[in-house]
């Protein structure tokens, strides 16, 4: 008879085989990373540009990003998309604080043909008037919808207050940005941040070396001359502010504070603390606020990485009548980490969980490339993950306690609520 009351024996993850991609210099400042070992014919190509939302005023980064495939002298936007679709390709675009990314997903036999279409579309974009009007209308609608979501309002206002000392990082989109075209602005942003703004290329796919060479030839001309420069010194005033929304049935909470960039000596051990507090299903915040009180569908913590800094954030949406009760519980959980040592059972659970997740994030060529990229972009290498394994295994309750005292003071937080 099996004993169902006892967990079968488990083994902690001991070793993870991290794989380094091949690295090519497109120029001295721009690299191409290539992960070749893919078991089937799929390919992903990512182009990174120094064109994130902090890089321009009046929503120029977001608008230009949306207009990259809006048409050339020779082809309309529909024709460009038709060409890519006819080769079975998918385009994906993404924009964040410090980067804009254009991604191609396709089968390897079609990669070069699609890459040429993408290169031509971006290179020869003419910002046709009808396309600009249509794109602005779509962005305006999306903006208006987002303004009705408490999660978005809280997120935006949190960002504005957190980065209050930096004009470019605190700037929010405004309705007017989408209400009249600014062709001069679009063209100059496009020239500066795309045609001279490529910061890296990543490729996952079992293609040949000649393909890599051709991609370097094709996109290398957009390489940014100098490494991009980023702000890193921000000052924030701890405060608590509410943004009312009449008919909301939930309140969104965003609270956070600056911590440090990824290369800081406390970064890895803080991840363990952050996981205990709110970064997995069994975390203290989830256990208390969702699984014990039922105040929310979800609550979590995140460590947001910037090139030269980083911030810690707690995110949730709760029933509006329990907003204050939720904040009280968050305060209680922060204080508990500062006053009591984490028990051995909980700490070992979190360690095992984190090692298992690290193993998972290195599983397969796509995941491994992303993993490498997310350290290489910050000037780190794969030893970061070897260190991560060591730190996770060896951090003790006393050290967690120290970090909580150092970094999780309630009075240091910016708290934004909307609802």
């Amino acid at each position, binding site marked *: 008879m099996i004993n169902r009351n006892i967990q079968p024996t488990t083994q902690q993850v001991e070793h993870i085989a991290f794989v380094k991609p091949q690295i090519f210099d497109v120029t001295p400042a721009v690299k191409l990373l290539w992960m070749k070992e893919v078991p089937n014919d799929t390919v992903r190509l990512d182009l990174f540009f120094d064109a994130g939302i902090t890089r321009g005023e009046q929503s120029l980064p977001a608008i230009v990003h949306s207009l990259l495939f809006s048409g050339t002298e020779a082809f309309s936007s529909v024709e460009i998309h038709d060409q890519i679709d006819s080769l079975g390709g998918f385009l994906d675009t993404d924009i964040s604080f410090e980067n804009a990314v254009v991604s191609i997903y396709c*089968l390897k036999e079609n990669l070069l043909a699609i890459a040429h279409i993408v290169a031509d579309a971006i290179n020869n974009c003419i910002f046709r008037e009808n396309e600009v009007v249509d794109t602005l209308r779509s962005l305006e609608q999306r903006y208006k919808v987002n303004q*009705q979501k408490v999660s978005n309002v809280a997120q935006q206002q949190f960002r504005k207050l957190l980065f209050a000392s930096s004009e470019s990082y605190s700037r929010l989109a405004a309705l007017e940005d989408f209400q009249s075209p600014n062709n001069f602005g679009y063209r100059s942003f496009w020239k500066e941040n795309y045609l001279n703004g490529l910061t890296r290329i990543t490729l996952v796919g079992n293609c040949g070396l000649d393909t890599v060479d051709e991609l370097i030839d094709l996109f290398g001309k957009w390489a940014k001359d100098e490494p991009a420069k980023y702000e890193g010194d921000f000052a924030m005033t701890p405060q608590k502010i509410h943004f009312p929304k009449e008919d909301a*049935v939930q309140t969104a909470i965003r609270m956070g504070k600056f911590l440090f960039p990824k290369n800081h000596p406390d970064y890895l051990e803080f991840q363990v603390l952050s996981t205990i507090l709110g970064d997995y299903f069994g975390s203290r915040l989830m256990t208390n606020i969702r699984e014990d009180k039922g105040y929310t*569908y979800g609550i979590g913590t995140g460590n947001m990485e910037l090139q030269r800094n980083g911030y810690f954030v707690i995110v949730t*949406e709760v029933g509006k009548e329990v907003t204050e009760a939720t904040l009280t519980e968050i305060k209680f959980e922060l204080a508990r980490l500062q006053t009591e040592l984490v028990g051995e059972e909980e700490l070992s659970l979190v360690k095992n969980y984190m090692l298992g997740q690290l193993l998972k994030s290195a599983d397969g060529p796509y995941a491994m490339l992303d993993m490498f990229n997310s350290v290489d972009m910050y000037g780190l290498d794969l030893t970061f993950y070897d260190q991560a394994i060591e730190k996770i295994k060896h951090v003790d309750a006393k050290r967690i306690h120290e970090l909580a005292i150092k970094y999780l003071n309630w009075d240091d937080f910016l708290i934004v609520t909307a609802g």
Partner: protein
Amino acid sequence: MIQFNRFKLANGLTVLHHLDETTPMVVVNTLYDVGARDESEEKTGFAHLFEHLMFGGSVNIPDFDAPLQHAGGESNAFTSNDITNYYNVLPVQNIETALWLESDRMLSLAFTPKSLEVQRNVVIEEFKQRYLNQPYGDVWLELRPLAYKVHPYKWATIGKKIEHIEEATMDDVKAFFNAHYHPANAILCIAGNISFDETKRLVEKWYGTIPTSIKPERMLPKEPAQNEFRIQTLERNVPNNAFYYAFKMPERKSFEYYVTDIISDALGREKSSRLYGKLQKELQLVASISAYISGSLDEGLLMIEGKLNDGVSFEALDEALWNVLAELINHPMEQAETEKLLIKIRTVKAFQEQGLLNRAMNLCNYELLGDANGVNEENELYQSITAEHIQTVAKELLRKENCSLLRVKAITND
């Protein structure tokens, strides 16, 4: 090609095994053949609420998540109108923890009153977060009862209304478990670097003693053929007028299902699609438009949805939209367009085969349809679709009497 083995335990549990020697992880995926369509109309939202309770402790194990996390793993689940699916991803050396946990909650739940009370609240917050506190969030709550008059697809998985969740009792929970949560009503897939023999040994060990029950016979009322155009208009405090055209489409097992999928791609999947090109780019009537299928097992819906530009009337959109649909009905599709749609399917299939969890879920989904190997035959089915198929199915589906239209009219409260 996804290779797999299949066996069945004496208690009726169907088990699929997929070997992947390249991954250090293992997936334990369990599909229960129960969804919101199996609820009674007076107690909707139950399949989904129940999914939450499955994490609230089982008969011998007080907490589901902690032991799994201790084993380096992670778990989640989702409920649809058709199925409830639970998955665990963990380092392969610790697979027994997942089998121990999953088999124990198949055996029986702890049924603690606290768990029910808390999860009722959590689900109510989920209801608010996803459906009530979002602009256009309640559209599906209104559209389903417009499109379906009899079939239980007329309510959403979250439930018809919050009251149904508030009123759920422990007796309801127990009855639901007894009817639907047992080996004969489940498909288990183990995927990872683990041999077939070892899989058999471990599954037999943990699941072999779970008592058998009879698989419930599903007797859902069949939705009568729709013979009328239905239209409903909601007034909401939203920024723009929005439209949702829902056409009844064939069930999952039919060949026409695949043809309809291709039709939805032709109409509005990408920026080279017909509706996007004509209504957004050329006529500038809409700020966004897309088409897709609901993907349900019984008769589903082919959807066309979007938002109007300011100053454009619903009527102007309506006329232009039906013209685009008439094109598809009246003229056979050119070969270049069919080829474009089919090569995109090929790309998608290749990417779907990349993820271990994806493979495990897909094998279970196809086994539910009758044969897990369907996952390997699907691309060929798509590739066999011709312009003639497309025209025939378009003619059958894209009729006004087969359509339910929900309009959301923007009004301002402030």
